Every structure is written in structure tokens, then in C-alpha cells.
């Protein structure tokens, strides 16, 4: 591996930034910039505290509690107003959005060299000759990079093209060493896919239970170098990222609400992650979105534009380089409102490229049509076409993990009977490890109760769901630990739940035992229960009556209140007393309650 950077360091580290350059936004924005902005916004948002310290006057003093109340009230009012305005404009204007998502593929090597894609190494240490566009160097297509790209294409239900080709997209920018990006323009890897969005994916209410968004195409392409700006005139370049394989996923313009657009990006990210096509999500900068936004008046004559084969749309603008789900949603809202304002004041929306800064309320113009770049797409004369065999596709299809949609419908179906609220975290947590653990527990439980009917089987699944998610999950959260399926082995939890199911221990005992095992008790559950004397030895009716009478004698006046004023809630107090007085873990609350009712209420009739 070459390290030409080291040799030419002094000259190359100091680059002149072109102020008019059209491609500033091609860069992923440096993280530092966002950090440095935070303190200033935090200051400006609390002007009141500053004022009180300087111009302190008794007469103006508003009690803090009142002030907070008023603030909350006005915030609520503002929100309601915004919601109403949104609804009103929605009635009048239809929004149309298409999304382009760029995702870094999970590969060992770069797209056209054997250099590593590792992102943690020293800057400019993973760079081959071709990555720097050295004269005389040629691309060496890394066929293994196709695997994650194809997995993504299959997971998004695309038609994989038997033959795809690489093209050069030309533009000058210092993060682009060759002066062109190698991408797939004329013959992309895959076409005509779709992604299904459901209510639980967070789509807008007006989209109902389900929308399907078409995927126009998926293409492979090179990432650019990472640049870091040091104003006023220095830029540092790290070519480790150059030519990292990316896929670009282009959706059809079939999205009509900002929330659904954000849900779509979120869903595509989770699909890419679950099929192991990508390594990092938006949070780590491994995924970026550009959105195309247009509006048209409802019931109006159709617009003149068509994109992706869909006609009758309004003039669109493109917002580049959005780096969070919230940014996607906020930028679309802002751009939609801007376009409405332009049209309602008699103006014309221009086809242009716009940018979005996190925390702002308006998109800003980057370049207009006249500044549009002619990319001069040309087939790459060095790279042969990529031929994909049916055997490879079917093998990848066979080994692809089940989609989260399929898992969700399995878990919420008759077999498991979980709620969507419980099923979703099971699918999403710990990259599927939690779900695998859960299914192990359920399988073990069912082996122990093979004879019971479907309803009881479902009850077992729900019981296991509750314990895996909430009880075990709670312990993990409290201890601030990451998931580890060996901490409480599935066999141990299944055996514990089996005891609980058979009513051989009480709920509180089960929780106590779970906690013991969680803390490292390695004894088999049955042995543990016996040695700790935790198995339920049911009390006889006589023993319950003795206990109940003892409790009643402690507070006879309360008995009267229950009898005459029908304050049945107070029965609970006596149950508590019985639990406390009885032998630990032997008093079962429902039975105690029944005996108390018998003694206190039956006598009155």
C-alpha cells in the first residue's frame, strides 16, 4: 500500500478552497462543525435568565411556576396552530417526495482496489494507486463488493440486472481524485423494487395502515475522500474513504408526507442493516439522503413535470445531504412550506439544489438550474460489464435473513400472539440476538408443554415475551449492560417460567430467582429453588383463615368501613398484611383475597 500523502504532505495539506465551487455539498459535512454550533444555540435559547440577572425589578417578577405554566401553554398553542396550518395547507396542496439514499457497503476492500475500507486507521494509510488516480493505474473491480449490494437489492425486492455496467460521472472537486466518480448510470445493478411501510414504521396517519414505495433503481458507486475544513483556506483530505463502495437507492416519487419520507429512510436503513449490506447507519455517517420535493394543488390541472416515469407533478427542488431522519422530515416540511409560500404569492418554483442545516427552519439555495453541472456520463472504457448469474442470486436469496416485516407478522400472528409494541423491539434489539433468544425460550417451554392447545401455546409465547423484554430487559437496563444471551441462559429462563406456569412458584419468587441467576448464580433452577426453599408449598384453607383472622384483628375499624361503606379497595391492605405475616413466598394473593372476602363480606349478608 502506498503512502504518497506522507511524501507530499507539506504541499497537499494546504488546499485552496474554491468559494464558488458547486460541489461543496458533495462532502459529508465534518462532525466538528455541528458540535461547535451547539453552545451558541444553547445560549440564545435562554435569554430570560440573563435578563433577570441584570435588570432585576420586583414589580416585573413573575413566579417561576406561573412562568413555566404560561410557557408550556403558549408552546401548546403554537403547536396546535402549526398543526392546523399544516392540515389546511395539506388540504390544498399535495406534496410529492422522492428520495436518493447513499449507503456505505459492508465490504473489506474498496470498489476498485484491494485497499482496506477500515475507517479507524491513520488518515491516508489505506490507499492504492488507483484510489489516488495515479497516472497509468487501472481499476481492479473487487467482485466481493457485489455481495452486500446484491443482498440489499434482494431485500428491497428489486429485479437484478443480468448485465450492469460502470460509467464515469465527471466533475471537479478535490475529494474526487480522478475528476470523475465511477457509478452506474446507463445500466444499474438492480431496478424496480419496493419497500413496504406500515403504521408501526411511523408513517403519517393520513397514509393509513400501509403504503408501498417503489424503488426505481440501485446502483454501485465510489465514495469520495473525506475533507475537513480549517477556515479560512485550509482543507485536509483523507483518502482512506475514497472509493469505499456505496450503493445509491433511488425511490419513486411516491411519498406524500414528511413523516412517511422519514419512515421510508428509517425502514430502508433497517432493511440494509438486517441483511448485513451496510455497517453503519445515519448516526455514524454511513448513510446519507437527498430528497426531491415538489408540490401541486389538489384537484388542479396536472403539473407539467414528470420524474421517474410519474407525470403531472410540479417543479421539484433537490435538498442534498441530509444526515438524520429528523433532518429528512424537517427539511421536507420547510421546503414544502417555502414552495407553497412562493406559489401563493404568485411566484414560480425554480428547479434548483438546496441545502439544509440541522436546527434551521428554512432550506437554503445552493445553485440554480444555470449552475447545474453537466456530468458528461461516459461508459468507463477500462471496466468490463458485470454479469450476475442466477445461481449467485438464488444462493444469496436462500441465505438472506428473514425480513423484519415477515418476523413481525410471525410474532403478532396466531403462533405467538404478541402485540406490535412487544414484537417490534424483539425484532429490532441487539441485531436479532434478542429474538433468537426469545424463540429459544419459547421452543423450550413448548417442549415441556406439548399437549396443550393453541391458546395455551400462545399464552406461553406471551409469557416468554414479557419476561425476555421487560423483566430481563429491566435487569439489563438497571445494570447498564449490553445484551448477552449467556447471562441468563435460555434453558434457565425457560425452566423458571415453566415453574411459574405450573404455579409452583409465585411471580415475585420468579423475579427474585431471575435476579439471582442474572447476578451469576449458576445452579440449575430446580436445585436453586429447592436449596433456597422457594418452591411454593400451598397453605391449607385453615392456615389462610388463621392468617386472615389475625390480620382482621389488627384493624377492626377498617373491617367496618369495608362492610358498611363498601370500600372494597381496602381489602388490599389486609392482603398485604397476610403476605407479610405468612411464610415468605407461600401466601398467594388471589387466595388470600378470596378468604378475606369470605370472612368480611359473607358474614354481612
Amino acid at each position, binding site marked *: 500500500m502506498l503512502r504518497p500523502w506522507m511524501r507530499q504532505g507539506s504541499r497537499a495539506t494546504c488546499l485552496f478552497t474554491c468559494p464558488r465551487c458547486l460541489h461543496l455539498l458533495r462532502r459529508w459535512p465534518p462532525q466538528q462543525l455541528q458540535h461547535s454550533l451547539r453552545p451558541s444555540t444553547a445560549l440564545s435559547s435562554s435569554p430570560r435568565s440573563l435578563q433577570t440577572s441584570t435588570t432585576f425589578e420586583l414589580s416585573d417578577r413573575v413566579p417561576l411556576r406561573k412562568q413555566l405554566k404560561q410557557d408550556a401553554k403558549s408552546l401548546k398553542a403554537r403547536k396546535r396552530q402549526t398543526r392546523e396550518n399544516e392540515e389546511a395547507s395539506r388540504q390544498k396542496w399535495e406534496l410529492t417526495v422522492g428520495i436518493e439514499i447513499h449507503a456505505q457497503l459492508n465490504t473489506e476492500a474498496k470498489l476498485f482496489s484491494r485497499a482496506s475500507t477500515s475507517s479507524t486507521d491513520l488518515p491516508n494509510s489505506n490507499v492504492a494507486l488507483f484510489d489516488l488516480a495515479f497516472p497509468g493505474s487501472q481499476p481492479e473491480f473487487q467482485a466481493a463488493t457485489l455481495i452486500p449490494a446484491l443482498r440489499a437489492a434482494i431485500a428491497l425486492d428489486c429485479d437484478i440486472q443480468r448485465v450492469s455496467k460502470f460509467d464515469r460521472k465527471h466533475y471537479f472537486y478535490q475529494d474526487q481524485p480522478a*475528476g470523475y466518480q465511477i457509478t452506474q448510470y446507463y445500466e444499474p445493478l438492480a431496478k424496480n423494487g419496493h419497500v413496504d411501510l406500515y403504521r408501526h414504521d411511523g408513517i403519517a396517519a393520513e397514509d393509513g395502515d400501509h403504503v408501498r414505495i417503489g424503488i426505481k433503481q440501485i446502483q454501485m458507486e465510489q465514495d469520495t475522500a473525506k475533507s475537513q475544513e480549517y477556515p479560512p483556506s485550509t482543507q485536509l483530505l483523507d483518502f482512506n474513504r475514497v472509493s469505499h463502495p456505496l450503493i445509491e437507492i433511488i425511490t419513486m416519487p411516491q411519498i406524500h408526507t414528511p413523516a412517511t419520507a422519514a419512515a421510508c429512510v428509517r425502514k430502508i436503513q433497517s432493511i440494509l442493516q438486517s441483511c448485513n449490506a451496510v455497517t453503519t447507519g445515519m448516526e455514524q455517517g454511513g448513510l446519507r439522503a437527498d430528497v426531491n420535493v415538489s408540490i401541486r394543488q389538489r384537484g388542479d390541472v396536472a403539473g407539467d413535470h414528470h420524474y421517474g416515469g410519474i407525470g403531472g407533478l410540479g417543479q421539484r427542488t433537490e435538498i442534498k445531504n441530509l444526515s438524520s431522519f429528523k433532518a429528512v422530515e424537517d427539511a421536507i416540511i420547510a421546503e414544502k412550506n417555502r414552495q407553497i409560500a412562493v406559489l401563493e404569492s404568485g411566484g414560480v418554483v425554480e428547479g434548483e439544489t438546496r441545502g439544509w442545516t440541522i436546527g434551521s427552519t428554512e432550506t437554503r439555495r445552493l445553485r440554480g438550474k444555470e449552475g447545474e453541472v453537466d456530468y458528461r456520463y461516459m461508459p468507463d472504457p477500462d471496466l468490463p460489464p458485470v454479469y450476475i448469474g442466477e445461481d449467485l442470486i438464488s444462493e444469496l436469496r436462500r441465505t438472506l435473513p428473514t425480513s423484519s416485516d415477515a418476523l413481525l407478522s410471525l410474532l403478532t400472528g396466531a403462533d405467538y400472539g404478541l402485540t406490535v409494541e412487544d414484537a417490534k423491539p424483539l425484532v429490532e434489539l441487539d441485531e436479532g440476538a434478542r429474538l433468537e433468544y426469545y424463540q429459544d425460550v419459547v421452543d423450550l417451554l413448548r417442549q415441556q408443554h406439548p399437549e396443550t392447545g393453541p391458546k395455551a401455546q400462545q399464552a406461553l409465547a406471551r409469557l416468554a415475551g414479557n419476561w425476555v423484554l421487560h423483566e430481563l430487559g429491566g435487569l439489563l437496563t438497571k445494570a447498564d449492560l449490553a445484551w448477552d444471551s449467556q447471562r441468563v441462559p435460555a434453558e434457565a429462563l425457560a425452566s423458571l417460567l415453566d415453574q411459574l406456569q405450573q404455579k409452583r412458584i409465585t411471580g415475585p419468587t420468579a423475579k427474585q430467582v431471575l435476579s439471582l441467576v442474572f447476578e451469576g448464580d449458576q445452579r440449575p433452577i430446580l436445585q436453586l429453588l429447592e436449596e433456597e426453599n422457594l418452591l411454593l408449598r400451598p397453605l391449607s384453607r385453615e392456615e389462610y383463615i388463621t392468617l386472615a383472622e389475625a390480620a382482621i384483628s389488627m384493624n377492626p375499624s377498617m373491617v367496618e368501613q369495608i362492610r358498611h361503606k363498601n370500600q372494597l379497595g381496602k381489602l388490599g391492605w389486609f392482603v398485604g398484611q397476610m403476605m407479610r405475616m405468612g411464610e415468605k413466598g407461600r401466601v398467594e394473593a388471589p387466595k388470600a383475597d378470596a378468604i378475606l372476602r369470605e370472612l368480611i363480606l359473607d358474614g354481612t349478608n
Partner: protein
Amino acid sequence: MSLLREAERCVANQSSCSSLNALISSWHQSCQWLDRVNKADSRRAQGRPKSRLDGRLVAIKDNICTRDLPTTCASRVLDSFISPFNATVVQQLEDAGAIVAGKANLDEFGMGSHSVNSYFGPVKNMYCGRDAEDFSAGGSSGGSAVAVATEQCYTALGTDTGGSVRLPAAYTGLVGFKPSYGLISRWGVVAYANSLDTVGIFGRKVSGVRDVFDILNQHDPRDPTSLSLDSRSRIDAQLNSACLASRMKTNSLKIGVPVEYNISELDPTVRRAWSRSLNYMLHQGHSIHRVSLPTTKLALSAYYVLAPAEASSNLAKFDGVRFGTSLDGDNSDSQIAGYLYAQTRGQGFGPEVKRRILLGTFSLSASAIDNYFIQAQRIRRLVQQDFNAVFLADHPLMPYRVNDAALKPTSNQAQVDVLICPTAPSPPPVLSTLGSGSASYSPLHAYTNDVFTVPASLAGLPAASVPVTVGSSESLAGVQIIGQYGDDALVLRVAEMLSGKRL
């Protein structure tokens, strides 16, 4: 003659011929070559030479990367660039015992037909006119040609994109060979137009050229356009079939004469050399057949759309950021002051390179690509079909499938083994008529010099230019032999029959 004496003579010639400006950089100052030649001499004495090139000096066109000498491409933008690696062809030659004696001058990035577009000054032909006017050495590999012709080295590598080896060979009385596209590795060859670029070989005799070709004709995994081992064995199998193998022995080859090459602008001396060559072949027992290549006229235009298009893309990497010369200059021009690369590219490239970058940028632009780039690609396909129609041998990489049989032209014209035609329409022009000061100068005129060499480049076919002398007038002309794809050995065989003949 010992290798040492031969090498010493070459080095002496490098000094005495330095005014011809054939080499941009050379090793003649240092004596590193001496030790290597001595070792090769002793290997030869023991009867164990590494190859026929062991201990011989070679010149490498300066757009082919060498680790030990700069690789400038005759451009200011790379005027002190040293490549971190050797091109595969350089490595192959060194492994065979050859010694890189110097880097040969050229038209900047290979763009030109007379080797005058060089940041290091024009190459001069060793032949002069009657009034001692300097002749063009041809281009773009003019430095390589002159270095071999004046015995500054034993052999030299050039590159041939549209005739850049064959044309200078014709102008300097050498054998110049452009093999089938994909046979010789391009790894380390600075791309001008990747789909056309071919490494070519200069020699004083065909046998020397063949020796070099045998060393370089290998698959290279680093060049994605290098012909695969599979395809190579498929071609060999086809060539070894009974009907094709006989052509390497018989004395009755079918020789095609493309009528479209007999243009009115053809210089009489060139026409004479062509017709006498055909006559000679006829007397040797071969048969001569008239054939037609109707797309020939369009080929030149297609070439000058496609090559600049690829060049505009390939040359985008020269921005002075990661390697090469970074030029700041004065920033008085506010129009370009803000652009990082403007000074480097504005001052680093010569006028011909800039012209072709602009041409290519235009022909790839959204509004022009359909009319220029796409049309030119169609013409390129037609040119290939023209050749396939006249050669007896099928194109081994595009055989006619049964259901495509209808596509194979069933014209009544003869089918032939090789084509023989002129290399250039005229003898070498005088250099002073080529400068931009000259009244008759136009870039378009310079482009027409490639009219006979471009078709074989577009089709990727093997072609050689050999020198023949036409008796009384003592005038020298290049005659071109073109063969079907993969028929490199046959082309060299026919070249050997004609090379150096006094007719």
C-alpha cells in the same frame, strides 16, 4: 559485436544526436548500464542469455511509467513527475535483461502526428530536405522512432492510439508494429484513450520487433482490458485449425487492396511504393484482391470524436493536488482565481491537449452526446464489420453465431488473409510548415495524416508499417499490413516479406 560495444555505440549516438531531441531523459550520464551490459555479455558467452534482448538498450516512450526515470508525458503538468512503479511492459523488458536507456519524446500525452506538441521541444527527423529543412519524425511516438533509427538504442516502445507508432515508423524508415488490442498490458501506460491505446514496438528489422513482442505478449491481471488466458487459448485454437495454420507457411496468401485507400490526395511516391509492393507480392506467388471498406471515410471523424472524449475524462486527474506540478501563477484573472485547478490545468497543458479536452468535453455534454459520441460509437462498430467482412478468418472474439449468419455480409467481394495499404498519405512534411506560424497550418490538416492508420485502431486490429524503397528516386515510404484480430503473427510474417525491399 559484443553487447558492450553495441551499448557504447548507442550511448555515443545519444550524445551526437541530441539535437534531434529524441529523448527527454536518459541514463547516459550515469554508468549504471555498464555493469548490467557486462553481466549480459558474460551470460551470452556462457550460452545462457535471459532473452534475445538481454543486455540491449531500449527506449521507452515517456508516457509509460518507469520507477527510475521521470515520466513526463511531454507535459508541463508532469515535468518532474516520477512514478512510484514500473509499467508492466517495462518490468517485462527488464526481467528479460533489457536496459532502459532513456525516455523518448512525444506529442504531449500522445496527442499529435508529428511529435511537435512537446513541452520539451519538437522531435526532429534525421532525414532532411534538400535545403536542409527538418522533416517531421511523425507522431506521437516520434522520439522512440528517431532513437531507434539513429541507433541510440536497439529497440523502443511507443504507444499507438490512432497510428502513433505506424506513422513515425513510416517517416523514419523503421518497422513499427501495433499488436491486437489487449495483447500487451497497459498497466503503467498513461491513458490517452483507453479503448484505443495500444503499446507498439519499433525496430530496424521485423525479427527484432518479434523478439520484443514475444516478451510482452502476456496476460496481465492488473490491466482489466488485458486479454484473458481463456481468450488467448481460444484464439490459439482457432489459429491452429487446419485452414488458418497453413497461412504461416504458404506462398500464396490472399492479399486485399482496399479501394477506399486510393484517395486523390495520395502522394505519387506513396502510391508508387504501394503498387510496387503489391506487384512484388504478386510475383512472389500471392494473389491480389480488390476489397471495399466503405466506412473508411467516416472512421477518421469517429476517431476524432471518441479519442478526445476519452481523453477529456482521463486527463481530469491532472489537477496538481496529489502528484505532478501545481501551478499558482498570478491570480489577476478574477474569473478563474477562485477555482483550485484553473492555474494548473490552464498553464500545465499545451494548446493541442486543451483543444482535445474541449472537443471531448463538448462531445460528451448532454446536448451533444447523442449526435457525436453515440454516433461515433456506431461508426466504430461499422468499421469493425467492414473488416470482418473482408477477412477470411472470423473475428475470434465476435464469431458469427448461427442465427447471426444473416449479419455476415454476403457480398461478392473476395475474402482475404491480410490487407496491404499505405501507412500515411504523404512522405514526412517539413517541420516548419507545421508550426502555428505557418500559413498552411490547421489542426484539421494534421488530423488527416491519420486517415490510413485510424481504422485498424478503431477495430483493435494488428497492423505494421514497414519501410520500402522505391528504386530510382531513392524515396522511402511506409507500407501498412493489417490483419484480422489475433493474426499478429501473420501480419509480422507479411511484414518480413516486404520490409526493407528495394522495389
